[in-house]
Structure formats: C-alpha cells, structure tokens
C-alpha cells in the first residue's frame, strides 16, 4: 500500500506576522515555519497505516528551499521518502495551479490513498484537497474525523455543522482531507531525525511533471491587511428585558433583519 501525504509549510503559530512591503502577503524573511497542523494529522494517519500494515508513506510539498525542513521533519517522524516541488512558477501560482501540480504527482506515483489536511493555516482555502482529487481523477472527501479501511474501501466519518457526523464509503484510490483531532500526532524521534538524512528527497518542477504550461495564476491577491479596530462599540445596559428591547431596536435600525 502506498500513501501520499500532501503537506504545507506555514508560519509558526508563535511567529509575529507583519505585512510585507508590497502589501500582498506577510513578511517571511525573519519568521519560523512549521508543518501546517492540519497536515500533521494527515501524516500521523498515514504513519499509523505504516505501523500496522507496512504502508509506504511519501510526503509531498511545494515551495522554496525552506520547505525541505518540513520534509525532513516528516521523514524524521517516519515517512519513507519525500518529493519537493521546487519551482518559482508554482510558488507564484494560485491554489488551482498548485492543485494541478500536486495532482500530477499523484498520477505519477499512483498511490492507494492520498491524505492531506482540511485546510492550511495561512491561506485557509480548504480547496486544494478536492481540487487534487478532481484533477487526479479520483474520489475525494473532506473534514474527515475517522477512517476505517477494509480491502479497497474506506469508511470515513465526516464532520458536519452542529456537531453532526456523516458516514461515507469511498473506494480507493481516493483522497481524504482530515480534520484536526483525528489522532494523536507523534513527535519526531532523534533516531528518526538521524535516519531521515539517508532518505530521499526528489526535487521536481512543474515541467518535469508535464504541467508547466497549465499553472498560470487565475487568482491574484490584491491586498493583505490587518483589520481596522472599530471605535463604535456601544455598551447596552439595563435589565435583561431592556437590553433585549434595545438590541432588537438596534438590529432593526441597522437593517440586519
């Protein structure tokens, strides 16, 4: 069994985020990065399959040189090999373009299962999983909080609004994007980190994967900004009935109903 895990390197949760000088993204030069936490759950799910069934786990990411750190961490946690899409055109592309590239990896690798996080913590599109599934021509499902595998079929639990769950059966090969909390993510071990040095990281470009001409961005970020703090907060005071009446009047006044 081969499992492909797509992961993304994102700014560290404790990093101070400043807007870049061109105002279209954050300043990345002096901050630390880490694996997107959603993706760590996907990786753990794959490593559990490796522990129990001896699955081969291949981690894939796209980005600048710094993303090799994320791949090394994943290899240190137990992944078998890694693929690094290192291509400035991919970095400059949008979610659609990146999905095409990652889908091309999936076609080349022909995995039994693709796992990825539900969304990334930096851009938060929650779109790349289904897009990869579509471009790779395989079924996909999202927001998964439980996976059971039997033969060539997965039974997964999906998280819905209001605490409801949906149970879905899906045939492999397929793509599953997982929700956080699906498992307890392991830490890399020191032995694993040492062994990771001997594992392979294949570097590829979009052209190597045959999609070099198909990734020009269709979406452009115009501006990234910090929300302006409003100074129009109004404290509603009085008894419960008075507060309710004042709130209802305010809602009507603002035309929110």
């Amino acid at each position, binding site marked *: 069994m081969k499992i492909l895990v797509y992961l993304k390197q994102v700014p560290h949760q404790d990093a101070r985020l400043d807007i870049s000088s061109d105002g279209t993204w954050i300043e990345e030069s002096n901050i630390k990065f880490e694996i997107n936490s959603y993706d760590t759950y996907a990786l753990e799910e794959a490593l559990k399959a490796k522990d129990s069934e001896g699955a081969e786990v291949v981690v894939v990411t796209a980005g600048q040189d710094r993303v090799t750190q994320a791949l*090394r*961490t994943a290899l*240190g946690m137990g992944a078998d090999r890694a693929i690094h899409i290192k291509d400035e055109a991919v970095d400059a592309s949008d979610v659609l373009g990146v999905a095409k590239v990652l889908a091309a990896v999936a076609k080349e690798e022909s995995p039994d299962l693709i796992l990825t996080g539900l969304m990334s913590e930096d851009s938060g599109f929650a779109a790349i999983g289904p897009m990869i599934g579509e471009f790779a021509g395989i079924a996909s499902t999202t927001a998964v909080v439980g996976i059971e595998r039997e033969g060539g079929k997965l039974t997964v639990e999906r998280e819905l609004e209001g605490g409801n769950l949906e149970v879905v059966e899906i045939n492999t090969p397929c793509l599953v994007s997982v929700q956080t909390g699906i498992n307890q993510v392991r*830490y*890399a*071990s*020191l*032995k*694993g*980190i*040492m062994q990771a*040095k001997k594992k392979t990281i294949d570097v590829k470009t979009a052209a190597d994967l045959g999609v070099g001409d198909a990734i020009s961005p269709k979406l452009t970020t115009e501006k990234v900004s910090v929300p302006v703090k409003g100074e129009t907060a109004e404290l509603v005071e009085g008894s419960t009935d008075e507060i309710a009446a004042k709130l209802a009047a305010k809602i009507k006044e603002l035309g929110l109903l």
Partner: protein
Amino acid sequence: MDFSFSEDQKMFQETLRDFLTAEHTSATIRELWDSETRRSSELWQQLCEIGIMGLLVPEEYDGMGMDEVDLVLCLEEMGTHAFAEPVIPTLVGTRLLADLADKSLAQEWLPKVAGGEAILAVQYPESPFVQDAHVANLLILQKDGELHALTPDQVKLTRQDSNDPSNCLFSVDWTPSADTLIAQGEEAAKLSAEAFDRGALAAAAQLLGCGQRMIHMACEYASERKQFGVFIGTFQAIKHMCSNAQVQVEYVRPAVYRAAFSLANNSVNRSVNVSMAKLAAGEAAHTASRVSMQVHGGQGYTWEQDLHLWMRRAWSLDLAWGSKQMHSQRIASIVIDQGVPTAPLGESWLA
C-alpha cells in the same frame, strides 16, 4: 573551525521544544507539585520515545552513541521549560555505567535507560542528598572513594525539603558491601570527577534556558502592561534592565557550549570550563530572575504568576552539582594554584 550546531542538533532541540511546549506547561508543573512523586511516568516515557535518554547510551546498548555537544541544546530547552524530570542524574549515570571497566552493569541497565524502563540516581560528594532517588531503579552512591550501585530495596530514603517543589532530594541510608561495589581507587576517582562535571554542565545548560525564559517573560509582560498610557516596555529603565540581563545570558551561552565540547572531547580544561559555565550560568539566571521579578512589579511575587516556577528552578539548579563557592574555588585552584592556562581555542584545548 565551524562552531555552529548541525542541522540535526538543531532539529533535536526543535523536536524537544515542540514536545515540551505541548506537554509540559506551567499547569503541568503545578499539577506535578501536587502529586505524590512530583514526577510523571507518562512524560518520561514520551521523552524516551523521542530518544533523549538514549542519546548518550552507546550504540551497542541500543542507544545513539552521541555526546554532550549533541545533547547541550536539548538540556537548554529543558531549562527553558523548567522541565525537572530526572534527566540529569540519569544522563550522568548513563555515562558512568558506560565507562565502567566491568561492562556487566552497562549491559544490564543501559538498554533499559534508552528504552525508558530505568531511571538512574547519582550521588556526588558535594551534596549530602541524592536527587530523584525515589523514582530511581538504580542508585549509584559514593562512600570512602568507592562507587557502589544499589537497587531501591537496598536503601532507605528520607525526603528533604527544597524551595523548589520540583527538586526532589533525599537523604539515603545504605550499607556498602562487596556485592554493591562497582569501582574503587583511581577508576572511581576518575569516573566520579567526570560524572560531577557532566552533572554540572547539564545544570549550567538548564540554567541558561531558565534564565532566557525569565527574560522572555519580562519582555512579554512589559509589552502587555500599560502605565501612564503606554506599555512599560517603552520606558528606558525597563529596556536597560532587560537588555543587561540578556547580555549576561548571551555571554553564558558560549561558555556552556564550550564546556559541552570540553566534555565530549575530554579536554584538559574540562573541569575549569565546566566550572566557569556553571558559575556564569547561575549568575545570569539570578540576574534574569531579579530583573524579571522587578519588571513584573507586585504581581511577580504572587503564586498565580508563573515566574516563580522558573525562579525556584533556577535556585535549585544553581545549588545543584556544586555551589557558586565550590566552582569559584575550583577555578581558582586549577588556574592559580595548578597554573593550568584557560586556553581559548585551538589544539591545546584537546587532550
């Protein structure tokens, strides 16, 4: 000569940082203080699964066969998180058992240490008490220039009070016998001296992390607390205090790393380098705690604030593995009385 740490060594530290940040918060410390043993077998097991306790264990005993330079950043990280599980005595005991001429104890115990099945306690002559003797599976004790190894059923423990509830000290009643003897004479003296230096280095590295954390706490508080309509961190009086403490910590950093290198390479200046590191780290941590306490104002004295968790840790680490006086006297004795030069870097550094 490249003095920077390797990518692997930095990843060891980052892995441990991720683990401690998630699993060992100030709330964890407070919970452990209220527990019977003040130690967590779960945390210990996780730490061993990451591989920290196997780092100094030779490869033939299922360890990684690495050295103090590989370890020092991890020790520093433990200080940053006020992590007080019995890492220092176990690491010290690990090398001691590995270096014994008779390998039977190493064969029996070191695979267990690497696998998280055994904790070691080590007595050193400068302290009347033994740290973490209550959770140790093997105690290495000293008497009359001899080293003895005893199991818990061969000793009687009496808990001792400490300003730092994380610091678990015990007086140990025991009787030496031919069966417990593991080294004597020159071998015991050599092993004992190396064990002491290794323990002092580990305490110095943890003090370094502890001091750094207290400065961070001061800076964080100064960036949140407003007085006269502005953050108190904008006042020069606050900035200068924090900067001076940070400068002191930065000067300690190379001293600690040099001591680690000395131990790993059995430098002729090993003991003086370790003493200088321990002395400087203790003073820097003391400065950091004083400054942080002042920046925190009245709140710094309260039980609810986390600062005192790190202050207490710094106090107990400062007293462990040789006091300031002991290390000062040792430096004076080595440098002045014996005339051993404190060479900076180069060939003369290595034995």
